């Protein structure tokens, strides 16, 4: 699978970012029907064509690498240089760090052999990352043989945020993570919290028992049988780092949207969340991979334009407020109304087309 990387993309400042037609078609569109409500939407993370598009979409591999990979890794490095606290792992999670390194290296080298190579002789490992130009020999289990801790080392080379959960006392504790592409949550704040604590601010879902059942399901995720779900919010500009720490930088963006610029400036932000049981530590790795596409890019898929209009139009006000859409939702709905001819949409998230209309 050859990927045409776009190393000059930026996620701040001048926002040099766009999705190719292929990237639009493989976008993990999160709405499988014309309305949205919280529910248990977790499923086995098996290889699937469900994401649509020529390459099987974002569900075709364990950890998806796309055209934004090189630029996203550079963005992560920049955020960590300015704020090293975006990666923190508690000391008792060291085995989970090595588990994560092994899982991501095994997966990337198996799924993208032309880009990533892992060679192992006992505990002497050699890792080659061609897109980033890295060649690293190290000793598995020996922290001093890597330039960063094992978790930070490998997640600097992966798209999306990750958290490490320790399973104990009948719940999950967020005892580590890296967060540079997050939708307004803080690792420094959440570190050490239980599953119910860090989900405390979410409206409606607690009362529906969603988190009780989700926690039960997650605690039973088995090694070799990962799970996934999609989550979403909306972000002004293709900005990956919408952290609470940087709210003064991006918060005011919400006041800049107009009828003229909203189509290309407002982005649907989709999180492909994956859940992996880690074998040595018995911990649970969460992958929280952010995909960004402007609402005009998504509307090039007729089904998605219609559906996004209907979902936003009918969104429960509490969910709309929690996702930070109050200032611009009416403007977005008015913009998308132009592409909604009222035609019925097919069930499921697939785009229903093989190529974008001219």
């Amino acid at each position, binding site marked *: 699978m050859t990927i045409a990387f776009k190393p000059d993309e930026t996620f701040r400042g001048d926002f040099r970012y766009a999705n190719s037609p292929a990237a639009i078609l493989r976008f993990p569109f999160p709405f499988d029907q014309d309305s949205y409500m919280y529910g248990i939407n977790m499923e086995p*993370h*098996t*290889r699937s064509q469900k994401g649509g598009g020529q390459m099987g979409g974002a569900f075709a*591999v*364990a950890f998806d690498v796309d055209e934004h990979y090189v630029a996203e890794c550079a963005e992560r490095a920049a955020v960590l240089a300015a704020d090293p606290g975006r990666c923190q792992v508690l000391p*008792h*999670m060291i*085995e989970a760090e090595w*588990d994560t390194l*092994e*899982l991501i290296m*095994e*997966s990337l080298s198996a799924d993208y052999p032309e880009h990533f190579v892992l060679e*192992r002789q*006992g505990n002497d490992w050699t890792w080659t990352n061609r897109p980033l130009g890295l060649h690293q020999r190290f000793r598995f289990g020996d922290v001093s043989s890597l330039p960063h801790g094992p978790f930070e080392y490998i997640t600097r080379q992966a798209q999306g945020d990750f958290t490490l959960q*320790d*399973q*104990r*006392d*009948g719940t999950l504790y967020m*005892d580590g993570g890296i967060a540079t592409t997050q939708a307004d949550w803080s690792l420094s704040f959440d570190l050490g919290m239980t599953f119910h604590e860090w989900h405390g601010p979410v409206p409606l879902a607690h009362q529906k028992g969603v988190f009780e059942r989700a926690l039960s399901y997650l605690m*039973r995720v*088995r*090694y*070799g*049988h*990962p799970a996934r779900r999609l989550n979403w919010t909306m972000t002004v500009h293709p900005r990956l780092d919408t952290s609470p720490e940087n709210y003064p930088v991006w918060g005011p963006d919400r006041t800049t949207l107009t009828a003229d610029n909203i189509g290309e400036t407002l982005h649907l932000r989709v999180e492909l969340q994956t859940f*992996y049981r880690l*074998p*040595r*530590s*018995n911990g649970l790795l969460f992958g929280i991979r952010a995909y960004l596409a402007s609402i005009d890019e998504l509307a090039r898929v007729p089904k998605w334009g219609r559906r996004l209009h209907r979902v936003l139009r009918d969104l429960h006000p509490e969910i709309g407020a929690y996702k930070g859409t109050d200032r611009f939702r009416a403007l977005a709905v008015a913009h998308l109304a132009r592409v909604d001819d009222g035609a019925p949409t097919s069930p499921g998230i697939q785009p229903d087309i093989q190529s974008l209309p001219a």
Partner: protein
Amino acid sequence: MMDQPVLALCVAASEALSPTLRRLTLVAADGGRLPPAAAGAHVTLTLSVAGHARPLKNSYTLVSADPERGYTLIVRRTNPSRGGSQHIHEALTVGDGLEASVPHNLFALHSQAKKVLLIGGGIGITPLLAFVAALRARGGRFELHQICSAEEQDTFAALIGAQPGETVHLHAGRASFDAAAVLGAQPLGTHVYSCGPAALMDAIERQAAALGWPASHVHREDFGAAGGEPFTLTIGSSGARIAVAADQTMLEALEAAGIDAGSLCRGGACGVCAVPVRAGELEHRDHYLSAQERQSGGLVMPCVSRARGDSLVLDI
């Protein structure tokens, strides 16, 4: 790591530790790497046993799990054997192939334990051996009590290989182990892990509760108490009748009849094989269903539980 297949293994070594204990070393049949596993994990082996129409599936704790050197486990020949342990002792030889599930862990060490108290009964020593290795590697504080028959003391002592400064006690027979004294002497923050006969683990749980231990600090493994009085299963949808023999679990009887109930731990802990019940009295032996769910009688875990009476109607 998605779509993880069943592991194809091959017997690399099989050695008798005593007349009733045998240690197996299993490696990947293709010479490749095996998944690593945390202490406390088990695998389910698929054993093709002579005289059984369908393969038996037996779960065994991993005593050690190294991706390159392989998995080791210790199997006791049970009497009467359902066929699995006898097969491992008498038929399985070096070079034989067999399938296994990927490792699964329902008995993991607690990361915040200030001290770990390990209590084993008989073959229940197997996860404790994995715990001891893990605790030695991380410098964790532990105390081990192993109960066994007098003639097996030397075998178990050799397996543990106590190092200077470690607190390891072998007790010849249950009567020489004083659970109240051992539990009562532990510092705050201790987690107890017990593995062995259900009666032993029940006694540890009762004693810990009586001493005021938080339930979250008390852990047990259960291999499932198979066997009991024979009874007849009726499949609600088809009316088909399936005999469950005295030395057979309900899950094995369903599988032998060609019904794939889906299963995982086969020890009453994971909940995967739960099936709805239409009629019949139940003897719940699992550790998954809540007290309320047990009382309502709507679900049963066929891997360990049985009918209390001569018939049971499943709603499948």
